[in-house]
């Protein structure tokens, strides 16, 4: 559980780190002033000899971070910020994806699909009725996964991959009355 402890104590670690660096610089400045430097000269000399405080603090903090997770989070944050900054592009993407989703799954949500009627999706993404070419054999079994075979009223928009999930999904939650 040490990783969990580290996660919660990280803020405290960061504060302690900043404090340690500040104490270091204060001690050094006082030392240099004892040697005859003015406050300004001592501050400048202390910072020059210490190095780039921000960079050093950043490198020290990195020790406590999980590089992969934090990089992914940073990417997600950046993407969201970019999307917020260009609302026109964001709306275009949402409408395009939403339109595509409706074309594929819209009829399922209206309860028009049945397990034995799952329409084949062509390459162009258009759903055509499978009524005229009712699937048989292996294809029929594969299509059974779409919708719940035992519950004809099921209107789940999700492909039911497994039987337990299928029963759970139809447990009154997604049943059409």
């Amino acid at each position, binding site marked *: 559980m040490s990783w969990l402890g*580290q996660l919660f104590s990280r803020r405290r*670690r960061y504060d*302690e*780190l900043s*404090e*340690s*660096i500040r*104490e*270091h610089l*204060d*001690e*050094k400045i*006082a*030392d240099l002033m004892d040697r005859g430097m003015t406050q300004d000269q001592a501050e400048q000399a202390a910072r*020059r*000899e*210490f*190095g*780039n*405080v921000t*960079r*050093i*603090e950043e*490198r*020290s*903090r*990195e*020790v*406590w971070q999980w590089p992969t997770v934090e990089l992914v989070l940073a990417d997600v944050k950046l993407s969201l910020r970019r999307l917020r900054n260009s609302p026109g592009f964001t709306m275009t993407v949402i409408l395009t994806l939403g339109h595509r989703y409706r074309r594929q799954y819209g009829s399922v949500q209206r309860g028009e699909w049945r397990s034995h009627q799952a329409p084949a999706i062509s390459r162009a993404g258009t759903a055509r009725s499978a009524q005229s070419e009712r699937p048989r054999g292996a294809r029929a079994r594969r299509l059974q996964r779409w919708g719940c075979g035992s519950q004809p009223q099921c209107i789940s928009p999700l492909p039911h991959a497994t039987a337990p999930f299928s029963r759970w999904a139809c447990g009154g939650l997604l049943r059409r009355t």
Partner: protein
Amino acid sequence: MKKKPEYRDLFPGALELMILKSLSWRPMHGYALAQRLTDISEDYLQIEEGSLYPALQRMLKAGWLETEMGLSARNRPVRIFKVTQAGKKHLEQELASVEKMFAGVSRVLALAGQ
């Protein structure tokens, strides 16, 4: 601080080793530790003060060090770094390994040209 051309990079773990050895002699705060390392290394090593902090954090994370509040020589409250039992054990292992490495390198350098 700009690195002078006559200084070479330390081998990995060298800074941690020097910090552990210094702190096992006496627990110290960051500035005192930097001063100590600068004083005893004289002009042989160039140790940037700031580079101590990432190393100290790595060692705190590894459990080789711990901190506690104390007072500096000027009676200011400061964080003191102390070596833990795990740190002492690591220091012993590393010293043995480094001595062996130096002995090997010295031997090769002495005999390689003969």
